[in-house]
């Protein structure tokens, strides 16, 4: 299927075209970018539908970009998991771009081309079936993200950018060391070929294999923002411009994707000698991340910090779930991944709109304060009212007054985002947690109590629930402060183009609930095929290059 290469080529060509348009002609660049994003989303959905049409054993689509025989040339592999990630990325990209059209695209010159390059890196990382190619696409994605992070400039972004670049360069070094060691042990870079050869590695080399895999794992886990390698995430995501931050919400999931892909391929159950290597470490790293982010969420006073911590919560839950190596749990975790990423992206966009409403309220207060000696309003603190304002009068005056549409939108969107993030019914966060908890408590399927859950499973159950509670407390606190406490604040002026992407993302989350059955069936199928790596290996290694036209004429 030739369409498999399109998610990489399309953004690359769009980025090149946008660069050719020069530094002005913003309208054309925006149009090109939107068109490319819409087509990309269409391609993603088409690939997802096509791959879902096959049964589990044949749900792979392998593409040989240079038509070399399999273990030698690079391969692109599409399976259910990568198709899901492609659609998720394209959806969030479209929303972030629409939001950026309102204001942020004017904050720097190369926003549109960097945006498309970032998409190219993301899509490539999801599609590639080659370890070194994965490194290259990681770098494409990261270099574009450095540019996007600095978009809009300012000391805060530059400083966060310096730390972010340094951390990622070190992680890339670790990635290279791990890749080189795995190549040294197995003599190949093709993931499927390597997975097939790992079983035959002599016992003397197994230490080297494990060391290489562990170093590679550290690089991935640092990108997935697992504790203690996640100190870069908070300053970066709170400093980045909202559309860039929304796109970055997918980037932490790339680390998780790489861990899931490579660990299920290399260390499956029943592989003697390398049996489930590092699964325990993965579980405990995930749990430690959950503890860290739950405590952080509890204490978060500002909305953007709370959202960043909720991203780390989802990373921790996903990594821990990946370590259990159970299809039902992994399927639930993939459903959780989609829902939580969409919610985090919507929330990151919403943060700016809510901040804007606060800034509007603060300006008049600052002008008045010298006259009547009222205290200055500190950012993030409760607005202090001048002593001579009678709050009761003010409230009475408010009765019967229509609430401005902008405030209604902000309130509704905030409530839905909070419910999604905290995992409360009726939204997808709740469903995902129910599926994951059920899989944890009944490892052998519902109704059978044969194998009781272990300490790690109970810890994950407790932490999943506690992190939801912490998210609820933090978000209710922020919500009361932002939406209820201030009276008589002028309604912020929102533009349709800013509200539309948030609405679309939230609609997608509602869609996840309405069509929870088909989506869960899909993620379960993806998890099952992940846990049967022989299918992936067989699908890749059995692919033959297309014969050149001349040979085809001669052959019959």
């Amino acid at each position, binding site marked *: 299927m030739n369409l498999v290469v399109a998610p990489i080529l399309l953004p690359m060509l769009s980025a090149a075209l946008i660069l050719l348009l020069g530094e002005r002609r913003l309208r054309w660049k925006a149009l090109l970018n939107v068109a490319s994003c819409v087509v990309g989303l269409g391609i993603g959905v088409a690939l997802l539908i096509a791959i879902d049409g096959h049964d589990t054993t044949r749900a792979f689509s392998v593409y040989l970009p240079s038509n070399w025989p399999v273990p030698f040339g690079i391969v692109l592999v599409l399976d259910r998991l990568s198709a899901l990630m492609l659609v998720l990325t394209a959806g969030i990209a479209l929303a972030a771009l629409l939001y950026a059209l309102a204001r942020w695209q004017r904050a720097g010159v190369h926003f549109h081309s960097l945006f498309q390059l970032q998409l190219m890196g993301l899509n490539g990382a999801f599609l590639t079936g080659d370890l*070194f190619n994965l490194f*290259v696409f990681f770098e494409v994605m990261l*270099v574009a993200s450095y540019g996007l992070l600095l978009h809009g400039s300012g000391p805060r972004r*530059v*400083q966060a950018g310096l730390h972010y670049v*340094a951390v990622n*360069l070190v992680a890339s070094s670790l990635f290279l060391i791990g*890749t080189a060691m795995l190549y040294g042990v197995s003599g190949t870079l093709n993931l499927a070929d390597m997975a097939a050869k790992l079983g035959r590695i002599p016992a003397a080399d197994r230490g080297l294999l494990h060391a290489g895999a562990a170093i590679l794992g550290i690089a991935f886990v640092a990108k997935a923002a697992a504790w203690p390698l996640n100190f870069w995430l908070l300053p970066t995501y709170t400093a980045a411009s909202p559309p860039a931050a929304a796109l970055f919400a997918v980037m932490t999931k790339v680390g998780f994707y790489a861990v899931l892909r490579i660990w299920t391929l290399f260390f499956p159950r029943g592989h003697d000698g390398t049996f489930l290597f590092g699964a325990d470490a993965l579980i405990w790293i995930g749990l430690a991340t959950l503890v860290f982010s739950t405590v952080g969420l509890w204490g978060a006073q500002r909305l953007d910090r709370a959202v960043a911590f909720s991203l780390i919560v989802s990373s921790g839950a996903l990594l821990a779930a990946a370590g259990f190596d159970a299809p039902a749990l992994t399927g639930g975790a993939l459903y959780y991944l989609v829902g939580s990423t969409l919610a985090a992206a919507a929330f990151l966009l919403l943060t700016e709109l809510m901040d804007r409403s606060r800034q509007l309220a603060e300006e008049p207060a600052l002008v008045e304060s010298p006259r009547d000696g009222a205290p200055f309003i500190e950012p993030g603190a409760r607005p202090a009212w001048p002593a001579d304002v009678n709050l009761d009068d003010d409230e009475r005056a408010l009765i019967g007054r229509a609430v401005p549409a902008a405030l209604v939108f902000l309130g509704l969107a905030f409530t839905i985002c909070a419910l999604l993030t905290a995992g409360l019914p009726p939204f997808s966060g709740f469903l995902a947690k129910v599926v994951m908890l059920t899989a944890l408590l009944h490892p052998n399927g519902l109704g059978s109590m044969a194998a009781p859950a272990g300490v790690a499973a109970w810890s994950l159950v407790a932490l999943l629930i506690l992190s939801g509670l912490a998210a609820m407390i933090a978000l209710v606190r922020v919500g009361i402060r932002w939406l209820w406490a201030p009276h008589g604040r002028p309604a912020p002026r929102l533009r349709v183009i800013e509200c539309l992407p948030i609405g679309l993302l939230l609609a997608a989350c509602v869609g996840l609930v309405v069509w929870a059955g088909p989506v869960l069936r899909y993620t379960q199928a993806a998890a099952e095929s992940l846990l049967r790596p022989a299918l992936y290996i067989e699908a890749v290694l059995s692919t033959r290059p297309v014969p050149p036209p001349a040979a085809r004429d001669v052959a019959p």
Partner: protein
Amino acid sequence: MEVVLSIAIGVLGGSGVWLLLRPRTFQVLLGLSLLSYAVNLFIFAMGSLSIRAEPIIVSGRPADLQHYTDPMPQALVLTAIVIGFATTALFLVVLLALRGLTGTDHVDGREDSR
């Protein structure tokens, strides 16, 4: 040769990590560069270390790793060098921007309050 190469990688990597943990941005930059040299040499070592062996097949010599060096790590190193060079250059730009914006070369953008 193995010992010399591993000592070289160790010294480069060790000094790279030490510089990386220093508070000045330029030291961090040098540390990252040294670390990437160490990594490049390491990738090289993961092929086979051989003297007077070339990666390109010539006629009349059997095509196996006894007579040739592994071309794959060389290709990987080339790619890694290019990518590492570009990202280090980018780090340099961010470094200069931070210096211009904050007036200090401390990685946190302000001096330690000691």
